[in-house]
């Protein structure tokens, strides 16, 4: 194709016609405009006057230019100009479509699929065999197959939440024969990419396809300086941009919500920015994930594990403070150990329990008052952890001596024992390896830990099972007992270095961690993970959506540890892994991950997703030529003086009409007119989804429903209005119909707050997934609805009960068909205390209108009418179908009645009581 800049020509030879233009110039120049005959008595005065300009009988140059331009436009138009012509893929060998299919692809996966589908179509037309591979899969032999067979598989290909691991192995699995490659790259550099590129180039031409959209990655959150430290990276580091990080987690009722939001501003050229998010511990401990708002990619999601959780620890020491003996204080080492990793509280036990600590540590406290004991027991039943340390006071007291104290795991023998002291036999005792089943199992034993004194447990039947750490001679060192949902742990030595060197060793910290008293502030080391099986609880897909792990096999700690370093893989998908006592998050993006752009060898053809689409210009040129000819008519008339004043005015008028109206008129005035339109009558509104056909159907549907309402009820709605939830005021509309389309992007934060205001102040939204809900919410629309509604304050829902007021606001209905008949409909759940009154057919339900109605019956299509008022779309078959459409209209009538009259019909429940009262 002949190219001139971005414009290509289908038949460039026709452009030679432009050479004829100069000839045309001379021809046109020679022909003067025809004269007008005019009767004029004053001609007697004109006789003998000569024209000044002898050349006036030639066509004016600008008119000539206009005509030449018109002819030139016609010539160019017939030469078939095409803007941004797509170079057709030449070649007839096999075609390999390689997709990176990583998390970075997820944000525009659909467009990549579309591109691949276009390639497959083309290959199918050319009869080329095709292979589609996902480089994130395990390397396997590449086999080519027919394009249509590959096309059927294309829809099932989804991106993976990890990076390709073994690109070199792919290079080895390539077929022998030559083939061309189309590489849909995610834009990131992956190890081995250059080698694979070299191998592919050796087989044939390689075209690379990259999206110019920036890639964002969220690094794991860490805790430091009293706040959560968040950081995000991007690629490429170009213009300033602002993203928002949303912290999500369950609210007190267990529903996942956004708990906090933090803006992150990337400066010019900044690749990575950090920010601190300060939250109260209650909120902070609830966070389960951070995500970059609005991005659907596993890289923009960072799951949090126990490392972010900071427990509230109440410290209570026994005995009077001995001034000046800090190092002997039973609490000193605990403070030192816990300060960086937990929120410490000190004070009296009564006060501290009110703050509901996670852990209460009693260091050498022997006796507690009865009320304290009861309060502690209640707290333990709710899942508290009571950690007690022995000490001189406990050894001297008779706590748990004869009968087991409820707050002690074991009975104690009187006095305890001393080993390795000046007055005793034997050496100080070392620790025995931790037994299997102990929370400390696997911790390395430092050699310098020795115990010189301890309290001794009475040998009871449960002693062995309650011992979780023992000395080398078998005497229990740490014992544990379950109380309700909580547990009591007794360390048989002091919390200071008086009885043992344990508090001085690193083991002390590890043991506190294992007891979940403290949490690690940093990512777990390989050694921490080793020796356990980690079971995935929640895994992320490439879009960053949490999926139930199901029966994914547990991973050995070593494998998980390597995945922590190398990034997740097919065996270790990103997610939350649970070990025996803690949970570890494996995220796509590590703390140190840097995003590196893929670099391609010189000369590689790189296509962008946003390549401007091919556009034929023939029509534009032809119409330009036509317009010029029309102007020429007017101009010729004007030159020859036949254009009267009236005609001139009308020409001016037409020209003004053709001009685009001033932008201001489009902005300020319509606001008011729109507000007037929406408020002078009742207006049913539908949310504009961006899908033109869908919006059109919604508008027609509401029109049809409006006509039915007008005919049958006292509701007389005006024509419906499409609402853009980003820009339009919502409070004018009592009712919004929202057809869910995957084409609709997620609303912005402002739109969500507007929608939430709308729902809170009495608006109603009818969500329609239009899929008959056959798949139980797993259809594309159903999933998109879940994403859309995640930001909305939607109360708990239930399937519409048989006695819901919607079943009787105007018509008595039992089901709510649209174009689909049987899909379930969800409304706000009735309060659990709703009770049925004797003799009434329905319960005494809540006041108020359900803020949302959710279903998939495609109501708008059933309601839709065309311009003549006849149904626009078929419903069902024959009479049954018409019956179903009638029922759909009845549902619509009931719904709008419900919106406008609320639970008025429910008030009938009070009729017997009112009659009773009147009778008296």
């Amino acid at each position, binding site marked *: 194709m002949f190219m001139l800049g971005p414009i290509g020509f289908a038949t460039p030879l026709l452009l030679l016609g432009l050479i004829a233009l100069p000839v045309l110039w001379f021809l046109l120049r020679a022909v003067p405009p025809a004269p007008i005959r005019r009767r004029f008595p*004053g001609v007697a005065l*004109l006789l003998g006057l000569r024209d*000044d300009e002898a050349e006036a009988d030639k066509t004016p140059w600008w008119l000539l230019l206009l005509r030449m331009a018109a002819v030139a436009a016609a010539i160019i138009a017939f030469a078939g100009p095409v803007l941004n012509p797509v170079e057709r893929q030449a070649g007839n060998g096999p075609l390999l479509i390689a997709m990176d299919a990583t998390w970075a692809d997820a944000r525009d996966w659909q467009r990549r699929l579309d591109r691949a589908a276009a390639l497959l179509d083309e290959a199918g037309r050319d009869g080329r065999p095709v292979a589609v591979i996902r480089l994130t899969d395990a390397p396997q032999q590449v086999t080519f197959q027919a394009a249509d067979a590959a096309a059927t598989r294309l829809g099932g290909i989804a991106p993976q939440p990890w990076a390709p691991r073994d690109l070199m192995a792919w290079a080895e699995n390539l077929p022998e024969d030559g083939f061309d490659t189309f590489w849909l790259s995610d834009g990131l550099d992956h190890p081995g990419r250059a080698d694979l590129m070299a191998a592919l180039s050796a087989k044939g031409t390689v075209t690379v396809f990259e999206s110019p959209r920036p890639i964002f990655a969220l690094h794991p959150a860490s805790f430091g300086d009293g706040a959560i430290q968040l950081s995000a990276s991007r690629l490429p580091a170009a213009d300033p941009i602002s993203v928002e990080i949303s912290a999500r987690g369950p609210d007190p009722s267990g529903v996942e919500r956004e708990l906090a939001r933090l803006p992150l501003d990337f400066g010019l050229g900044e690749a990575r920015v950090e920010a601190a998010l300060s939250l109260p511990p209650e909120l902070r401990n609830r966070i389960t994930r951070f995500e970059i708002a609005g991005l659907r990619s596993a890289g923009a999601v960072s799951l949090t594990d126990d490392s972010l959780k900071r427990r509230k620890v109440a410290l209570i020491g026994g005995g009077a403070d001995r001034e000046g003996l800090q190092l002997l204080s039973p609490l000193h080492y605990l403070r030192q150990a816990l300060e960086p990793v937990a929120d410490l509280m000190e004070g009296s036990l009564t006060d501290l329990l009110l703050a509901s600590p996670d852990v209460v540590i009693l260091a050498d406290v022997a006796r507690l008052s009865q009320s304290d004991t009861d309060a502690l027991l209640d707290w333990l039943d709710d899942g508290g952890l009571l950690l007690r340390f022995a000490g001189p006071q406990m050894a001297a007291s008779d706590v748990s001596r004869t009968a087991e104290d409820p707050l002690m795991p074991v009975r104690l023998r009187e006095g305890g024992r001393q080993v390795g002291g000046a007055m005793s036999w034997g050496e100080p005792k070392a620790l025995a390896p931790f037994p299997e089943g102990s929370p400390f199992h696997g911790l390395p034993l430092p050699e310098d830990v020795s115990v010189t004194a301890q309290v001794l447990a009475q040998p009871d039947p449960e002693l062995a099972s309650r011992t979780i750490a023992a000395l080398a001679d078998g005497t229990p060192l740490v014992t544990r007992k379950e109380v309700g949902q909580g547990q009591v742990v007794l360390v048989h030595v002091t919390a200071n270095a008086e009885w043992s060197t344990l508090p001085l060793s690193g083991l002390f910290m590890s043991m506190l961690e294992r007891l979940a008293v403290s949490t690690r502030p940093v990512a777990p080391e390989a050694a921490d993970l080793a020796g356990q099986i980690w079971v995935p609880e929640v895994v992320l897909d490439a879009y960053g959506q949490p999926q139930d792990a199901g029966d994914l096999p547990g991973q050995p700690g070593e494998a998980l540890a390597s995945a922590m370093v190398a990034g997740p893989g097919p065996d270790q998908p990103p997610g939350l892994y649970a070990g025996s006592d803690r949970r570890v998050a494996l995220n796509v993006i590590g703390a140190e991950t840097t995003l590196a752009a893929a670099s391609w060898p010189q000369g590689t053809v790189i296509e962008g997703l946003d390549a401007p689409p091919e556009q034929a210009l023939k029509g534009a040129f032809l119409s330009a030529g036509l317009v010029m000819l029309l102007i020429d008519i007017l101009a010729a008339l004007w030159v020859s003086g036949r254009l009267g004043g009236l005609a001139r005015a009308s020409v001016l008028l037409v020209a003004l009409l053709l001009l685009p109206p001033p932008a201001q008129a489009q902005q300020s005035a319509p606001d008011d007119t729109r507000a007037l339109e929406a408020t002078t009558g009742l207006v049913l509104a539908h949310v504009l989804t961006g899908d033109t056909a869908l919006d059109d159907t919604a508008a027609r549907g509401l029109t049809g429903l409006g006509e039915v309402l007008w005919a049958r009820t006292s509701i007389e709605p005006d024509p419906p209005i499409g609402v853009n939830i980003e820009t339009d005021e919502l409070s004018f509309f009592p009712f919004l119909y929202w057809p869910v389309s995957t084409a609709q992007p997620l609303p912005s934060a402002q739109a969500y707050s507007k929608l939430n205001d709308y729902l809170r102040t009495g608006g109603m939204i009818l969500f329609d997934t239009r899929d008959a809900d056959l798949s139980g919410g797993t259809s594309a629309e159903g999933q998109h609805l879940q994403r859309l509604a995640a930001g909305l304050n939607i109360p708990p829902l239930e399937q519409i009960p048989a006695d819901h007021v919607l079943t009787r606001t105007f018509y008595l209905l039992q089901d709510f068909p649209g174009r689909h008949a049987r899909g379930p409909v969800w409304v706000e759940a009735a309060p659990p205390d709703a009770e049925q009154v004797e003799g009434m057919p329905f319960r005494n339900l809540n006041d108020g209108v359900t803020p949302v109605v959710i279903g998939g019956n495609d109501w708008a299509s059933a309601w839709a009418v065309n311009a003549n008022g006849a149904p626009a779309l078929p419903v069902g078959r024959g009479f049954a179908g018409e019956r179903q459409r009638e029922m759909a209209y009845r549902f619509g009538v009931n719904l709008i009645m419900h919106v406008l009259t609320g639970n008025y019909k429910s008030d009938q429940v009070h009729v017997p009581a009112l009659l009773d009262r009147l009778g008296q």
Partner: protein
Amino acid sequence: MSLDLQSRAESLGQSLPPLLAEAELLAATVMMGEHGRKRAGQGDEFWQYRPVNAGDSARLIDWRRSARGDAHFVREREWQAAQSVTLWVDPARSMTFSGDTSRPPKADRATLLALATAVLLLRAGERVGLAGDAAPPRPGRAQIVKLAAILSGAEDAGEYGAPTATGMVSHGRALFLSDFLGDLAPVEAALIAAADRGVRGALVQVLDPAEEEFPFSGRTIFESMGGGMRHETQQAGDLRARYLARLAERKDRLAALGRAVGWHVTTHHSGQPAQAALLWIFTALQGGR
């Protein structure tokens, strides 16, 4: 022939009453009293008594007045001599021009003015006639109908009209209505002939605004109303200045002619209301200024 005559008569019968009515309406706007000559003479109104001079016939003596005293008196009446006014309306083709459909042809306006003047004069007792032999000056209302019939029926094949001095009464008045776009030599001859007879009067040049403005442009062939003359130009707009200069020169010449013979000259545009022109004509014919 008789059919032609009949149709013309009918069209005349249709057009005459409205034309007359219009002329009467126009004339009614100019209120005039008895226009005595402020001197003794023949008339109906009493002027003064004067003593009898020698030579007065006895028939003139007013005996009723004379009986009251010794002297004889003669009753004098105010002189109410009727003037003879001769009208000439250019009947040529050029007068049928109208620059815009909203304006009447110049001939219509000229005829209207002439008839309105005639109505006024006849009402005042003057004698009104047309130049030429068709209608010699006569008093009375019947003359109006005759004038109207002749004026609206007049059709001249000539491109431009030329006035004639025949039929003018000596020391009478005359009114010429034309566009004066043709040759001025006949006009000059007629004026001189009229001046020779002591006739004074007024020249009213009736022009269409298009003739005054020349709003044309582009390549144009101008033709006279009869098609006898033509002028072709490539740029009509370029001719405007020179045309206007020539028009102004013609007006100057007309004014000079008028001054020479003591006639009043004005230009009336058919786009303007006729009333002002009628007032001007009336004062001009009264012989003031």
